[in-house]
């Protein structure tokens, strides 16, 4: 699975980092940086939660 963040939409609300800190890192530029672009299957539930919690709906998940 592959994760992508739309940086035009991302505003640094950091909900993704709360849901899946292994994958997302919101830095001082108020943008989400990906720690993992292809997270392992074991993080699927956390990733789905991050997608759902993003206030700007900026995160997308694509299956390989």
């Amino acid at each position, binding site marked *: 699975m592959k994760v992508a963040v739309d940086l035009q939409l991302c505003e640094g609300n*950091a909900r993704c980092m709360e849901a899946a800190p292994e994958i997302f890192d919101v830095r001082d530029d*108020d943008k989400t940086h990906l720690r993992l672009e292809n997270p392992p299957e074991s993080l699927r539930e956390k990733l789905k939660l991050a997608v759902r919690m993003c206030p*700007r*709906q900026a995160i997308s998940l694509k299956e390989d």
Partner: protein
Amino acid sequence: MEKQFSLDTIDIIGPDHYAKNGYPHAEWTWLRKHKPVFWCEHLNTDPFWAITKHADIIEISKQPRLFLNGPRLLVFVNDPGMEPSPTPPFRHLLDMDPPVHGEYRTIVSRRFTPRGVRDLEPQINAIAKKVLDDVTGRDQCDFVIDISSKIPLAVIAELLGVPHQDWEQLFQWTNETIGGNDPEFQQGTSAGETMDRARLGLFQYFSEMVAQRMKHPTNDITSIVANATIDGQPLPQLELLSYFFLLVVAGNETTRNATTGGLLALIENPDQWQRLKKNPALLKPAVEEIVRWTTPVIQFARTATEDTEVHGQKIRAGESVCLFYPSANRDEEVFAEPFKFDIGRDPNPHIAFGIGEHFCLGAHLARLELEGIFRQLIDRLDYAELAGPVERLRSSFVGGIKHMPIKMKLNPAQN
């Protein structure tokens, strides 16, 4: 047993219904089950599609070019016999659409991210402490007037750099703006007139402040907006002044009502209050649950730009959809036991702050404020009970509590 309703008579938008009964949760629950996209025709407002499901509100909010804010920001019900008020002369983030909306939002958005509001935490905690210090020693108060209304006002006034002596005036203008339909706040003959007066007052006030901040910028948000440019041009006067109007109004009523409704929920659910007092680490999820439970913004509307479909229902270009956030936040398909107030709820994907393009700019600030006040209450409030009726605002836009008399035992701060 489930309460039954008829589509011909069900009332989810009449302001009187809200003043008398609070939120129409029984009605919304019925609609979610039987008619999640419902063509609602009500006296004194144009018809609209009532959207009551969590997933449908998200789907609509994710498509800000298909569903616009500009044409009809919310479903406003006029009072019988009154002329519908003309479109209010505003232009701010709430009624802007992409791509302009983003350009305007960026002007202040970085001041409102978690990182942006982090530095305000000590200040907010100090304000919350001071407000409680002022009522310590009394055994009764009006929680709205004495406590919950004071904190958000103080915070937004600080952010904007408004001097202390003008806070009362600011408070009155915001009451009149949101409460124009309510007899307690009405000035003049109608809701429209009341709101107009408040708007003019605010515009006048901030135009003087802007002139001052253009000459001598400080670090406050007024200076940022006053000196902002878009494509190299300063903001036009209407957009500039509307910006302050939005920040003042949005920053006040909502947090006030979440605070009041939060304490009310804790009074009505003493087990949850005890749980929180014993385990203050639950403060953050408790605040999320308070926000879900109270959902102070009842609705915003969108207008379809082309023929489309929501939940299988055809929506035609030009028709409006009205998004009922409190209903989404009780959606049985999203929340286990949605009518249970559970301060440990996890996950809690409520959409009380909206979602997508127009996601509440002040969400993180609101969270800090609620954490600040409830941290104080956990530490210092030994008990509280209602000492009179809860008086609700006559509005189907913001779920307001105007007065909530309580008996209490509030201790002095430890340090």
